[in-house]
């Protein structure tokens, strides 16, 4: 299995453990990842704040690059996949595509409208499948109670994510968690916003959101959260001490990336998964697994 791989800026920046754990897990699953070195940032909805057209051109280009490679496009970030899919949806309009393709032509590229960007989490469920994953589990996570934290763009808008055609996407994280032997802790905040997009514009609101969800999950008995979104990871992990202050609660909840969780179950060493690089210490969690 081979994919055009878009790591996203954060996995290649402040969340390097997401990048390395993805590569490690892919290797063990036998997935070939061809990184889109020439592609641009998705714009994350921030470029489109002022320039929606520009953001669409950049994403059309990324999708055209994947078409040129004749490979399905894989993202490892809820925001990236959401923004890619929204662009793909707008670019189904032929006239819009023609207009945008003018900017791709000088590079010999053309977006033909065939991209179907998917998150690694979906690819695990849809392409790899439960049987293959089960066969690779060396260290079942029976001991753990895990809270899912999706990130807005992997749950909304449902139309863009095609939940009706792919019902497993609706609860993809719960499915993965139980596949790996752990117990899912459900709580209100799991499909809500982590607050990251407004961290710089309104820190108080942003950290109240993060803190509230972390506190709720902790009270419901979660040992850790698992998220497919590195932006959520930044607000929930790196900002957790500040979030605790803002809501005036004690918080100590490790936040795992999806491939880190899978890697743990596959028996990979924590260092290879970057689990030692979190702000919230993962040691207690690893001890419980006897690692």
């Amino acid at each position: 299995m081979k994919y055009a791989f878009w790591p996203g800026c954060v996995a290649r920046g402040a969340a390097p453990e997401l990048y390395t754990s993805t590569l490690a897990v892919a290797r063990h699953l036998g997935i070939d990842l061809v990184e889109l070195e020439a592609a641009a940032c998705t714009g994350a909805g921030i470029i489109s704040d002022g320039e929606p057209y520009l953001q669409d051109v950049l994403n059309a280009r990324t999708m055209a690059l994947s078409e040129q490679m004749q490979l399905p496009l894989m993202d490892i970030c809820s925001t990236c996949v959401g923004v890619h899919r929204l662009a793909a949806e707008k670019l189904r309009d032929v006239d819009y595509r023609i207009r945008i393709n003018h900017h791709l032509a000088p590079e010999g590229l053309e977006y033909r409208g065939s991209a179907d960007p998917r998150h690694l989490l979906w690819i695990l469920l849809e392409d790899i499948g439960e049987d293959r994953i089960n066969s690779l589990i060396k260290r079942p996570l029976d001991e753990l109670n895990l809270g899912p934290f999706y990130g807005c763009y992997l749950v909304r808008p449902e139309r863009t994510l095609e939940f009706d055609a792919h019902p497993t996407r609706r609860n993809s994280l719960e499915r993965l968690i139980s596949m790996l032997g752990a117990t899912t802790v459900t709580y209100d905040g799991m499909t809500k916003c982590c607050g990251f997009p407004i961290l710089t514009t309104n820190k108080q609101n942003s950290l109240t959101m993060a803190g509230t969800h972390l506190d709720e999950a902790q009270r419901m008995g979660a040992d850790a959260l698992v998220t497919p979104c590195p932006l959520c990871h930044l607000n929930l992990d790196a900002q957790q001490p500040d979030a605790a202050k803002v809501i005036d609660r004690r918080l100590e909840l490790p936040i795992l990336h999806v491939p880190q969780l899978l890697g743990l179950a596959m028996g990979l060493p924590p260092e290879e998964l970057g689990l030692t690089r979190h702000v919230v210490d993962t040691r207690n969690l690893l001890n419980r697994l006897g690692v």
Partner: protein
Amino acid sequence: MAEQRFIIQRYDPDSAESYREEFSLDVQPGQTVLDCLNAIKWEQDGTLSFRMSCRHAICGSCAMKVNGSSMLACQTQVSEAVELGDPVEVAPMGNQTVIKDLVVDTTKFVAQFERAETWLEPHEDQEPPEREYRQTVEDFDHWSHASTCIHCGACYSDCTVAAVDEKFLGPAALAKAYRFVMDSRDSKREERLKFLAETEGGIWDCTRCYMCVQACPKDVLPMDAIMELRALSIEAGYTNNHGSRHHKGFASGVRKRGRLDEASLPIQSVGITRLLTLNIDAHKEMLGYTPGAIRLLKTRKLLEAAKRHGASQDGREHIQRIFEEVEAEKHHHDVDADAFAAEFETALGSG
């Protein structure tokens, strides 16, 4: 006919007691959640309180949470609700105070429309028309999606920012404000954009969480309206705010290296000019980032970010070219508009 269980969140203001109560009833195919609430009220418990009127998704009074998400009870079939959870859990809307059972106090929600002055402000120098103020179909098409709001509050109920900030204008009032910004008969476009960009709880406080888009029973697309307001306010020059600086800093990083520049973005968002001119607030904001930055440094994450991974050289060149082309196209567009305006003036003068 099949028996269906409902768990209803109740609140009794006299005893200040809130509790969940289970009801069972026979449900016919095609029946809505509202039909069932009526049946419960008529046949099982006359004290159950909820709002309703039209039963046709027009009046906007029956919004409530069904299995955790806000929707119109009269528009939601029991068979759909069951897919999201069985027994069906019914609760009052969120982000507002409950008066009794499923009835909430909408004062806060309604007040946001007043704050945003969401009514037509016609041009004062114009004689009022004999009948109504009219506009062309083309003009209406620009904002028609935002015209269908029934003020049900479902979006506000699920809004993740309204949950933590009473001052946030919220999706419905902002979508309505957008509607008047776009309305060719309105005279206050500039003032509106300035207010929405600069007021506390305005357009830049939205997290882009899509809750409102998902909840709205009328496809108003409130979040899309907010995003358009952002672009319009930047275009109109209301850029002295954190949100538009963040946009500009983010975009300029991508323009240079093809990727997000995490290392310099906080500085750009706070505003380089503001920092250089020793603006006290700017320095405080910058300090606000520091604890996080020190932690990131400890885990060596900031070092990774500071390495500034970029797109490949070849990719960068094309990304820069695209930025330039899009900018030139915009400029071209401006020039055309200016030329047109000049022509128009001359034509008017000679006519």
